[in-house]
């Protein structure tokens, strides 16, 4: 059997103008043009989008789940970053 070894592309689709592109899935393609064509055939058969981005999966730099604690834990104890942390008397309006 012949190996195709086409690179993997991640597909992002904007559902309609006003929304940001969202990750939909991935596809294999020989080049960028084919990646767009395949993404269109596979992910927008029912008017799911008005714009497609494709990017080679190997080009994405991702955080390591093993680092999750050191990356995201410090945010948990900084509740003063949220508006609900502050007590304002009920009779003060428009704040």
């Amino acid at each position, binding site marked *: *059997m012949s*190996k*195709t070894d086409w690179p993997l592309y991640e597909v992002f689709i904007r559902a309609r103008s006003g929304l940001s592109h969202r990750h939909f*899935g991935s*596809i294999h393609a020989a080049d960028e043009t084919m990646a767009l064509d395949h993404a269109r055939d596979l992910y927008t058969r029912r008017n799911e989008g008005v714009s497609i981005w494709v990017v080679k999966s190997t080009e994405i730099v991702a955080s390591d*789940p093993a680092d999750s604690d050191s990356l995201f834990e410090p945010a948990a104890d900084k509740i003063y970053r949220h508006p609900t942390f502050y007590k304002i008397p009920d009779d003060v309006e428009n704040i």
Partner: protein
Amino acid sequence: MYTQGLDQKQKKSAADPADTPGRLAAFQARIDADEKIEPKDWMPSGYRKTLIRQMSQHAHSEIVGMLPEGNWITRAPTLRRKAILLAKVQDEAGHGLYIYGATETLGVSRDNLVADLLSGKAKYSSIFNYPTISWADIGTIGWLVDGAAIMNQIPLCRCSYGPYARAMVRVCKEESFHQRQGYEIMLELCRGTDEQKRMAQGALDRWWWPSLMMFGPSDKTSEHSAQSMAWKIKRISNDELRQKFVDVTVPQAEYLGLKMPDEDLVFDQKTGHYRFGEIDWEEFWEVLKGNGKCNRERLEARNSAHDKGRWVREAASAYAEKQAARDAA
């Protein structure tokens, strides 16, 4: 279901030294808390292996599932039916690709998955090894086979592995059209001439039992259920899903004025469920082993399509290389 091969006995593989009791317990705690597992998260090697097998069998089933229906595209009775059938078969290809894509997030290559299907090493659902000999078979497949698939895939939308669950959400959204177009074909035949009604009944007679077999072996003999349930890869047992399917489908057959080919089928007032006859498990295992009516034909068709498409793939690769070299110059 689409992954009946999972229920067969597997060789026990040696425990992976990375699966320490601490890690396994932490993983199970995440599952129990209904957290989703994502591709780069740590997972037990058994969880990964089970998912790869289940998801690849599911993807293969979608791909092979195009063949029985593809058989009727050129002979669909009207342009409307032809357009619908084309769209449905294209959806099945799409479903296969969503699931292959999700399977690859577990660290297997598409080429290897496809090679396993083509060599006959990988399994796919027994249902696609039955022939489609009349137009009514296309109606019955949409109504029963896609109906059974929906029954199975809805709980999979809550599967613990994120990419699989997300693929299932997309698949389920699209599958409903498949079932409804099938039932509509049956409605039209059943409102037609006596000959058309006979054709509809004949198709139901041939597809009813194989459809029930789609849910896999009885819970009493299924090998893998307990672990898959604990990992929330599988969420409802084979027999429970099968019962649900019978309960919703029998009234649909009655509406059509068709008779289920089962003398033992009876509504049990006490339980509120239909009781049905014994499934021919011997036939089920034979089809799964590769001895069904169309097993050989299906694999030959897949291999032939793959071989005949080789020059297209090679040309696309050559063109991409040429463009890349031109850009670099």
